[in-house]
């Protein structure tokens, strides 16, 4: 089956060494639709002779009905990989391309210019050292140019090349080039790019791509490829503070316990003292284990397993660091968020936050402002829509270790994940930890919930009713409270309508207000349960996310989600408050069941069928189930 290996080949060894020495530049291309990004990348691939004969043949065939350069090829066809992209002539998703010159290897992320796919641009930018910002010489700086440049700065891309494309279509006019340059510089100066290169090109005709073009004698700078071959983008991560996010505790048998992961930054050597970022527990590195044997030291980018000299509590998600170089450790921080989902972001809603290998539930506690990406102007907001950028405070359920993104992107960049669909909803960069959080600790008192509940001869708990308006929640809760009171127990009903007359009278019925409505009620329910009461919460609470949040706020308090499952038609026929009628008439907006959704609970503790039985029967069913 296999052939013996070849004997070592000296020439090849030499050539291989040269390949390994070649540095790698990761860059992305961005700009507006039709600026010619794909054409430029196609041109780079073609000119570096990476377009192969069989691909060329199929390209010539596909190019017949398109605008082509001297070679008769539409270069954009090289990179637009999806059928829909070729049909519509636009780039939908980020595509990665590879080429090499004698001096350097390149990975190009071709990112979409179309506004609705801006999230993919952020994706490309998160792993790029440099960005080409394309501008159509005929159109100048556009909204998308500004938006993309702002996202580049948000994601910490330090090097930008302004590529003024289609310069052939403005007659190779220097004045056009100069005025675009001036406009862009004025916009980009607050964005903090370390270098800003500029080059006038025609991607279609090849001007100033590989070498200086005779058509632009007024341009004295480097052509694009030579510029990319020589620019220094090195950011030595080995010089940075030591960060080792633990991915996995490797424990094959009783004799071995190691912590596996990739060194995010800095270096580590055998004998070094390290700290667990969360507990500040110290230990010394005993071994650095690799597939090929032990190492004496390891640096940023290497995947290794660290064995420590003593037993310390470390699990997946922990960060190992070094004394005097510890990251921030807090449950609150300020961050900038790029929202990537059709479903807007709301303060108070619970998401899953992932940073490094840590994964924790988190909520946006404060939406400070939205940044208008065209003007950089800051405006107030109650939600964050798709492709918007906002500055927020985020609170995590438990403290996490992190750095400011500007200091370390690998420990300061995070994503937010939907807790139901598991979709990636947004990406954020941490500005700084909010130290307040560390100073604010819970006061613990000697008289606690257990003592208070015992005085009342009961166990404190929360019964959370959910269901459509008119489903029978309040009737059942009312009957249950009566029965509990008759038995000498202490219960209290938190009713949606009543609470909205007082505590929550400042809230309307938008999705954002509904999220906050539930959060407040869950906190009140928790306080009441803490006082030893049996709390009956009767709220429509239409969103699964918020019910989950309520359960989390309850913490270790016994929490039962009771779904009063009554069909919409039945509720609407009952219409005790005449609300359905008014909603149908368009007098009430955002009415659950009519023009606002009700997400039925997927795993309630108990389902009561409101259409099948009288409320009294259901209240008794619930009473029995509660086993008080």
């Amino acid at each position, binding site marked *: *089956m*296999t*052939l013996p*290996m*070849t004997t070592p*080949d000296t*020439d*090849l060894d030499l050539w*291989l060494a040269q*390949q390994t020495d070649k540095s790698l530049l990761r860059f992305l291309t961005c700009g507006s639709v039709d600026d010619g990004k794909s054409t430029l990348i196609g041109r780079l691939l073609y000119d570096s002779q990476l377009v*192969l*004969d*069989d*691909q060329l043949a*199929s390209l010539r065939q*596909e190019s017949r009905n398109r605008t082509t350069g001297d070679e008769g090829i539409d270069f954009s066809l*090289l*990179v*637009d*990989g*999806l*059928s*829909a992209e*070729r049909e519509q002539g636009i780039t*939908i*998703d*980020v*595509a*990665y*391309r*590879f080429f090499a010159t004698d001096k350097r290897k390149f*990975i190009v992320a071709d990112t979409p210019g179309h506004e609705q796919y801006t*999230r*993919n641009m*952020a*994706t490309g930018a*998160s*792993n790029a050292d440099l960005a080409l910002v394309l501008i159509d010489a005929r159109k100048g700086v556009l909204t998308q140019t500004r938006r993309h440049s702002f996202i580049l700065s948000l994601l910490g891309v330090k090097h930008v090349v302004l590529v003024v494309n289609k310069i052939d279509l403005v007659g190779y006019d220097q004045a056009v080039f100069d005025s675009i340059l001036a406009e862009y510089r004025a916009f980009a100066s607050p964005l903090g790019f370390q270098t800003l290169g500029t080059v006038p090109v025609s991607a279609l005709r090849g001007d100033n791509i590989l070498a200086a073009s005779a058509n632009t004698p007024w341009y004295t700078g480097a052509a694009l490829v030579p510029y990319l071959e020589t620019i220094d983008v090195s950011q030595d991560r080995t010089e940075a503070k030591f960060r080792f996010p633990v991915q996995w505790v490797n424990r094959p048998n009783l004799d071995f316990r190691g912590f596996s992961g*990739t060194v995010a930054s800095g270096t580590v050597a055998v004998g070094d003292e390290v700290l667990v970022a969360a507990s500040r527990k110290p230990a010394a590195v005993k071994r650095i284990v690799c597939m090929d044997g032990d190492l004496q030291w390891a640096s940023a980018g290497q995947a290794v397993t660290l064995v420590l000299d003593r037993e310390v509590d470390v699990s997946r998600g922990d960060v190992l660091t070094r004394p005097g170089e510890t990251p921030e450790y807090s449950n609150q921080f300020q961050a900038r968020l790029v929202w*990537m989902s059709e479903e807007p972001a709301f303060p108070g809603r619970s998401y*899953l936050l*992932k*940073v*490094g290998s840590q994964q924790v539930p988190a909520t946006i506690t404060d939406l400070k402002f939205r940044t208008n990406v065209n003007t950089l102007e800051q405006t107030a907001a109650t939600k964050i829509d798709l492709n918007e950028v906002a500055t927020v405070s985020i609170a995590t359920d438990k403290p996490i270790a992190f750095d400011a993104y500007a200091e370390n*992107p*690998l420990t300061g*960049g*995070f*994503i937010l*994940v939907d807790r139901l*669909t*598991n*979709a*990636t909803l947004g*990406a954020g960069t941490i500005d700084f930890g909010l130290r307040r959080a560390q100073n604010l600790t819970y006061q613990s008192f000697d008289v606690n919930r257990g003592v208070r509940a015992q005085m009342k001869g009961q166990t404190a708990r929360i019964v959370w009713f959910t269901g459509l308006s008119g489903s029978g929640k309040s009737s059942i809760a009312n009957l249950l409270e009566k029965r509990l009171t008759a038995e000498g127990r202490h219960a209290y009903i938190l009713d949606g309508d009543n609470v909205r007359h007082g505590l929550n009278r400042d809230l309307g019925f938008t999705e954002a207000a509904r999220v906050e409505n539930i959060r407040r009620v869950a906190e009140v329910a928790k306080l009441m349960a803490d006082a030893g009461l049996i709390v009956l919460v009767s709220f429509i609470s239409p969103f699964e996310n918020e019910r989950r949040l309520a359960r989390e706020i309850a913490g270790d308090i016994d929490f039962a989600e009771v779904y009063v499952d009554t069909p919409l038609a039945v509720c609407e026929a009952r219409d005790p408050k005449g609300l359905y009628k008014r909603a149908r008439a368009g007098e009430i907006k955002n009415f659950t069941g009519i023009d606002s959704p009700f997400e039925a609970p997927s795993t309630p503790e108990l389902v009561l069928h409101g259409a099948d039985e009288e409320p009294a029967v259901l209240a008794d069913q619930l009473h029995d189930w509660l086993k008080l």
Partner: protein
Amino acid sequence: MKTQALRQALDAGHYDAAIGGARRDEEKSRAKERIFSHRNSSHAWDPKNQRPELWRVFNTRLNPGESMRVFPISNWTELDVWTYIYREGIELPSLYFAAKRPVVERSGTLIMVDDDRFRFQPGETAREEMVRFRTLGDYPLTGAIRSDAATLPEIIMEMQASRTSEREGRLIDSDSIGSMEKKKQEGYF
């Protein structure tokens, strides 16, 4: 056929993830792949609705029935693979090295006559040629290339001078433009 077998095997094992060696430089729709690529409960890829993938933060969460295809060497090139094989001294199946083999030329592709399962079309006969396989896929749908490269250094040198793409020999790709994308949507790697 490979797609069906793969889907059946994944269903049988209820696997959360299948790790593959696909690379972004191979083919246009693969250039759009994530490193952690989400598949729905019928193993389908939805290229227009992929999860954004930032930094090294991978969203690996799945709902019941869903799965991941994971491509750790997504950013390697074909040349990277061969230089790595050379550096690490990895053994390879002999089909990757040039040898005299019986082949039939069909629509510009050299199909190897492996055993008596091969069905000759009218007028076809096998002839001996120095060939090797640049990629190994379904038999008999993967074509060989004419080559004298019988050792790893020779292969690497040949590749440097190569003017065709790696997947040129795979009939599966050339059904029509966009066929790989379609196959991936159905559950192909």
